[in-house]
């Protein structure tokens, strides 16, 4: 009899507090990409503690707007940057889309992000046709595979590439292919928000943004990220009146 009562109490406790935990959990955001996510350029002499990319600027904007988020990733930098920010990320200097595809599943398992900020493809310009979306589709397929395996949901905020002034029309064509690919995937149920990273006037070496360029990137990520965060909150919003009644 006592065991039965204990079981009921335990079930009720789980029923009440597990969703509440979900409602209050920090949103986990994974900055994913290449050197533009990690922060590096040719001839860079800064130690890793001073590297930040767009991530510190975005962190400040989120904090100012009152969002309590968690940047996730197996790598970190920017510990000496002031004001402090969460430096965790998945930025890999020199990586192509195919290299990111081969590692992303394990990183998702390790960090379980809710939202991914993805700017990738710049290094593909040295190897692949701008019409070849197989690498970036491979990354998105791996994210889908993870969502299915773990019964979870990830919003991907996918950036059109920052233009490369010396790469001719490669980026323009890549971005056009990206537009078509994203439209198709959204039509088939993927949760993708596309953003246009046009910060070409603020490049330090013709490839990587200056600090001003990174701040511009944060300005571009922010509204899309805010939408993604609010959409997630709305998913659990039905719980608020329920708890209001329960805890009156």
């Amino acid at each position: 009899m006592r065991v039965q009562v204990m079981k009921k109490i335990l079930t009720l406790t789980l029923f009440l507090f597990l969703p509440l935990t979900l409602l209050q959990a920090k949103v986990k955001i994974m900055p994913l990409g290449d050197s533009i996510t990690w922060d590096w350029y040719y001839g860079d002499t800064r130690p890793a503690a001073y590297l930040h990319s767009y991530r510190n600027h975005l962190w400040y904007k989120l904090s100012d707007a009152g969002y309590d988020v968690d940047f996730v990733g197996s790598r970190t930098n920017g510990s000496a940057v002031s004001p402090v920010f969460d430096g965790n990320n998945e930025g890999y200097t020199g990586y192509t889309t195919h290299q990111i595809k081969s590692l992303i599943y394990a990183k998702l398992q390790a960090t379980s992000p809710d939202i991914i900020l993805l700017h990738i493809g710049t290094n593909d310009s040295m190897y692949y046709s701008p019409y070849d979306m197989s690498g970036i589709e491979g990354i998105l397929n791996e994210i889908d595979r993870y969502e299915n395996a773990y019964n979870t949901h990830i919003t991907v905020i996918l950036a059109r590439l920052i233009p490369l002034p010396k790469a001719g029309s490669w980026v323009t064509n890549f971005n056009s292919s990206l537009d078509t690919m994203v439209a198709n995937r959204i039509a088939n149920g993927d949760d993708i928000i596309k953003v246009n990273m046009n910060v070409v006037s603020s490049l330090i070496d013709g490839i990587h943004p200056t600090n001003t360029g990174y701040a511009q990137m944060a300005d571009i990520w922010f509204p899309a990220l805010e939408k993604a965060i609010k959409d997630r909150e709305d998913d659990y919003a039905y719980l608020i009146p329920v708890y209001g009644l329960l805890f009156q």
Partner: protein
Amino acid sequence: MIKLKYTLALFVILFSILYANSFTKERMDCDAGNAEACYKEAEAYAFTSDKIKKLDIQRDAQQAIVLYKKSCTLGYAKGCSQYGMRYAADTEKDPSKNDAYYFQKACDGGDLTGCTLLKMMTLRK
């Protein structure tokens, strides 16, 4: 008394598991001339995240440079790519070589990232 023994045994097992993650082995192997071990130790110094921090290692950019350079000198291609990225920041660099030299060495050794960084140099301003 038996409970105490079990508790102690459990403590020893947990302690062993935790220290199995330490970089003592990599350090010893690197000192013995194992290029890959030097690279692994460098990676830990360079990239260790706060959330998965190893017990006996803290991020140290200068130590990472030293170890990447050593792994490259010992013939580990990935080490050459990573050292090339940090070449400008090395206070003890060889002035007869430059970052392109190390990216080329990485590429010749089969590291795709080295090849990419070498090719991407053509897009610099």
